[in-house]
């Protein structure tokens, strides 16, 4: 229990340092854009593939169930896929994927920098290392994750449409009637809130785990795994509270 509070205290202290005043704003912007490119462009293919198939699978599964209930019109599938993708599947699945890909990458990158004394080298120069190495990663993640989630929603809906057409469950007109039916902007707001919180959670926990690593290659591996596991768990808890409080 004491260790949990110790870690929580360490995390909060590090976050405070990470958002302290930068030495030279231009350098921090440059680093933030570099991180945004790494996180965004680097993760786009996996997000695109997974979300397209998730949309497709959702459409097929609902079509399978609706067939047995002849009273439910097939155009509802479009509505369900849209709602499911926006409210839950796109933000949650994207965040879990990013925790695995980006989170482990951040933790191992910072861990390696710590072990190879690169972080010490920054400190000796007089650089505020948490602000320079952690701040831009979190900022980039908070900006880029919502963008990826929006793309995931769009591709999920397209995936659902493609799967439905392939299976002959509905026509294009029927599907997109469902997609537009009962659209509520508040759902998108919830999605963006989740995406921002997930972006912060996965990057901050991964940064903390990587930045504070001690030891060698084995410890870097462990911290990377812990970053993925812990950020995934915390994101699911955050997910619950967002749904509980905002829906």
């Amino acid at each position, binding site marked *: 229990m004491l260790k949990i509070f110790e870690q929580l205290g360490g995390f909060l202290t590090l976050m405070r340092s990470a958002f302290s005043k930068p*030495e030279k704003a231009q350098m921090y912007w440059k680093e933030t854009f570099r991180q945004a490119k790494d996180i965004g462009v680097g993760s786009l293919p996996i997000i695109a593939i997974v979300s397209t198939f998730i949309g497709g699978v959702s459409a097929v599964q609902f079509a399978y169930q609706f067939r047995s209930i002849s009273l439910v019109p097939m155009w509802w599938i479009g509505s369900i896929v849209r709602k499911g993708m926006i409210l839950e599947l796109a933000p949650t699945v994207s965040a879990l994927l990013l925790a695995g890909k980006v989170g482990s990458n951040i933790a191992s990158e910072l861990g390696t920098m710590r072990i190879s*004394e690169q972080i*010490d*080298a920054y*400190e*000796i*120069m*007089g650089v505020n290392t948490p602000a320079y190495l952690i701040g831009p990663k979190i900022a980039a993640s908070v900006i880029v994750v919502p963008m990826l989630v929006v793309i995931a929603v769009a591709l999920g809906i397209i995936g659902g449409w493609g799967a439905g057409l392939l299976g002959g469950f509905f026509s294009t007109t029927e599907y997109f009637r469902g997609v537009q039916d009962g659209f509520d902007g508040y759902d998108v707001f919830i999605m963006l809130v989740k995406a921002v919180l997930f972006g912060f959670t996965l990057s901050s926990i991964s940064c903390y785990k990587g930045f504070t690593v001690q030891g060698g290659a084995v410890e870097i591996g462990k911290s990377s795994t812990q970053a993925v596991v812990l950020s995934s768990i915390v994101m699911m808890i955050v997910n619950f509270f967002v749904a509980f409080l905002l829906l």
Partner: protein
Amino acid sequence: MIEIKNIKKNFGSQQVLKGISASFENGKCNLIIGKSGSGKTVTLKCMVGLFEPDEGTILYDGRNITEMDFHARKDIRREIGMLFQGTALFDSLTVEENVQFPLDMFTNQTAAEKLARVNFCLGRVNLPNTNKKYPGELSGGMKKRVGIARAIVMNPRYLFCDEPNSGLDPKTAIVIDHLIKEITEEYNITTVVNTHDMNSVMGIGDKVVFLHEGLKYWEGNNKEIMQITDGELFDFIFASDFLKDLRRNAKY
């Protein structure tokens, strides 16, 4: 000049530094030597502020770094250059970007001025035409030279070198030693070198501090060290029987 006074440092129940005092002079290569685990690296890291000493004071030309707040300490750090044991070059940056980084972060020089300074420093360490290479493409000796170029790019008043010769062949090690010595004298820097390489001690040891079990055991220079005939320092310097016999038969 850097002075350390009664520095103590514990890690848990293990007392690593038990009260070390020494002074490191301007324009000279000041060497800290000692066996592995004697406290050399901890002393160096306390001096540069990477470790917080439990007791004692560290004075940079009279300025006590142990009592400084974060911002004042950052100002002092801009007067410090450091060559790390593993060079600590930034993997994702080219040689030019590595050396230029402190200029980018802390100066408002134009791109042309920065490039000129980087090229000067790389030329000074005999590494021309390597600007666009990545650290992974360099040999151990070249990496050390880039490390030195990065350490001197901001015209430091104090230069720290942690095991500058580790992993280098004897000939390259001597080249690096001489480079450190030349730079120290040329720019009148206070240089502190942490080493257990006897070639360095004999070659550039203007002042030598020998640490043993967390205490300062001996202090002198590379001439005086040759007069030692017994004790811990003798065992350390002339570690093998071959060297001991050689020393006993030498006419010093």
